[in-house]
């Protein structure tokens, strides 16, 4: 992974000092609420329902064991002993004290972590495929490009006061595990006919109040021009994006209003003045950054191990976990392991300090001391030799991190909702628990197969509900929590937006509604057909009829 040099380190160190000063000025009354708001947001600090919330950046979801240990330390020393992983692959602490945040940042900076641009109207943490660099079908590793974007976007003087936040996702494979089509900019690494590396560029995707799938603005952008092209897009957006209404301020609205052709033309025309200039990334720099993401020194004989098959044979629980929570790896004899942060009872994405240490430990022993966070709010140990899987499973299991539910209904993406978020309309954690209790039976879950369930506590859609196979949106009806259900969404390469199933249901009825929905699926599916495919084949109507017939 990328290791800071002296210059990178200086930046985060100086940033801590700067933020300490800003905090002190605010506490002393020298800085107005409004001024401090913009500054604290650029350092990831929100003021929430209960307390401030600090969001720490995990650039493109990659962290070292040492970093995860420090996150555990921070959660213990400054918070309530746990953290929460988000769909932006960052980690949030829900209970820090405003005046202690500079100390937290100082602790984080020692291990090259920071909270820069994890909130506010600026370029946010770039996300990518959590199997980057290891997936057998990958075209090219996206992480070096993510790092180049990280550096370019960090404290960019021109783009710190954008109309609204700006999110970029990069993928390097035909499969899209980064929800790139619902980002402000989605970048797909591809090779052209001449074999040169470049990007297919999408713009104007997003969720929230107006969900839109991104549109292609460029078929092939030569890779060294990545930053010049991003700068062209950002400059046009900064100048022309709406600032009169925060719900209309994202770039997707500008693209819609301008029309993709006209918008493309504006960007291309401006880019003409930039390309080939200072922003072109020299090959030397591409090589330097790429070298940080070179393959680990894998054991070439890993596949010769015979113990895995024995264990799989002998232990059905292990077998189930292996089938669900481990994934193919390009190196023979290795698997990627998903650490489930979706236990039976517990908020999705939450992790205790002890669990963080356990995972850090496992990564040091078995996975080259690196951990990834996924936008689906789990962790990944990306490089585990098959002979070690059994032991990894046992340790994870002991710490409630091995629920064999990855990709299944209970592997839900859930935003914190009303319990923590001051923007929320409805609770989400209680509904997640209700679903967990109703769908406890693992065999039934496995029979239902791959289902992506996403839930948000309000229209801001932090839980990506529009692109869940099943989406749940919390709404407020006269002070009561109600839930609107959508089906047929996807954030993958076949991205689509879910369609509303029918009228919203009361809090107590969410899980039973899902039961009816899924019973209908089981009746209607053809052999081997996933839920989403049945919905796509038949449309919403049969589901709607079945679900609401019972109720009325």
């Amino acid at each position: 992974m990328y290791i800071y040099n002296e210059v990178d380190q200086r930046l985060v160190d100086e940033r801590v000092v700067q933020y300490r000063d800003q905090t002190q000025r605010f506490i002393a009354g020298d800085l107005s609420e409004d001024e401090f708001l913009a500054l604290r947001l650029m350092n990831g600090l929100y003021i929430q329902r209960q307390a401030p919330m600090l969001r720490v950046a995990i650039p493109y979801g990659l962290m070292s064991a040492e970093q995860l240990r420090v996150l555990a330390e921070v959660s213990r020393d400054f918070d309530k002993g746990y953290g929460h992983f988000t769909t932006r692959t960052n980690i949030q602490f829900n209970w820090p004290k405003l005046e202690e945040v500079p100390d937290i940042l100082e602790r984080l900076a020692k291990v090259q972590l920071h909270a820069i641009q994890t909130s506010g109207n600026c370029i946010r943490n770039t996300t990518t495929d959590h199997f980057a660099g290891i997936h057998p079908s990958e075209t090219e590793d996206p992480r070096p490009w993510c790092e180049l974007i990280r550096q370019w976007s960090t404290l960019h003087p021109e783009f710190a006061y954008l109309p609204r936040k700006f999110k970029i996702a990069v993928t390097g494979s035909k499969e899209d595990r980064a929800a790139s089509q619902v980002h402000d900019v989605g970048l797909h690494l591809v090779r052209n006919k001449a074999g040169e590396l470049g990007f297919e560029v999408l713009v104007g995707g997003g969720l929230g109040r107006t969900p839109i799938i991104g549109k292609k603005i460029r078929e092939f952008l030569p890779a060294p021009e990545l930053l010049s092209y991003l700068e062209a897009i950002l400059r046009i957006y900064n100048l022309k994006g709406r600032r009169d209404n925060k719900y209309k301020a994202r770039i997707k609205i500008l693209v819609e209003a301008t029309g993709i052709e006209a918008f493309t033309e504006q960007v291309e025309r401006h880019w003409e003045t930039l390309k080939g200039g200072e922003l072109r990334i020299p090959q030397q720099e591409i090589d330097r950054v790429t070298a940080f993401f070179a393959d680990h020194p894998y054991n070439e004989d890993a596949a010769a191990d015979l113990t895995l098959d024995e264990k799989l044979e002998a232990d059905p629980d292990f077998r189930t976990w292996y089938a669900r929570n481990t994934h193919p790896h390009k190196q023979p004899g290795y698997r990627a392991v998903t650490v489930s942060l979706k236990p039976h009872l517990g908020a999705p994405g939450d992790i205790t300090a002890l669990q963080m240490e356990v995972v850090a430990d496992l990564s040091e022993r078995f996975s080259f001391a690196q951990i990834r966070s996924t936008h689906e709010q789990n962790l990944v140990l990306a490089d585990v030799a098959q002979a070690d899987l059994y032991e990894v499973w046992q340790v994870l299991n002991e710490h409630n991190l091995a629920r064999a539910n990855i990709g299944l209904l209970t592997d839900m993406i859930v935003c914190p909702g009303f319990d923590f978020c001051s923007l929320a309309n409805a609770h989400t954690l209680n509904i997640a628990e209700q679903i967990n209790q109703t769908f406890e039976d693992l065999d039934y879950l496995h029979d239902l197969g791959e289902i992506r369930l996403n839930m948000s506590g309000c229209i801001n859609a932090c839980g990506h509900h529009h692109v869940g196979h099943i989406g749940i949106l919390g709404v407020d009806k006269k002070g009561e929590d109600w839930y609107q259900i959508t089906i047929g969404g996807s954030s993958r390469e076949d991205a689509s937006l879910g369609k509303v199933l029918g009228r919203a249901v009361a809090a107590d009825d969410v899980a039973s509604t899902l039961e009816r929905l899924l019973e209908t699926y089981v009746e209607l599916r053809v052999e081997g057909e996933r839920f989403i495919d049945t919905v796509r084949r038949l449309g919403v109507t049969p589901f709607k009829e079945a679900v609401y017939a019972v109720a009325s």
Partner: protein
Amino acid sequence: MPLLVNREIRGVDSYAGPIAFSEYLELDDAAQASIKSIRANGEDSLDQLLLHSSRFDLIALEFPIIRDGRSFSIARELRVAGFGGQIRAVGETSRDKLQFLERCGFDAVELDDEHFRREFLEAYTEISVQYQGAVDQPLPIYRQQETTA
């Protein structure tokens, strides 16, 4: 109202409260020719501004609210187009924007701030690392290393 020009505190100012660029555009040629300083913001046409900019000694760019960052890009475009006069930030400026302003090509800032203190000047040097090129240093960090190597 303190005025900073090239990081120095200026007491007296010859700045005579320039007219808005939109008003300037309404004037006839003769009247336009006598105007040496204007004030503009993100609502004005950038193309027009670039077209007329060489006539001005001073362009004041407004920050109507804290969150409006359009003038950062406008200043950058003016400098890239070769504007050599003063670009002054007015409106919702603050200590914590000083470094970004300078990096985007502003050489002057009006600070409407009762709390103004000399220490504000430290803001210019708080962060010494600049990853990306801008008006002050056009080379991004990897090219900076290239040239010093």
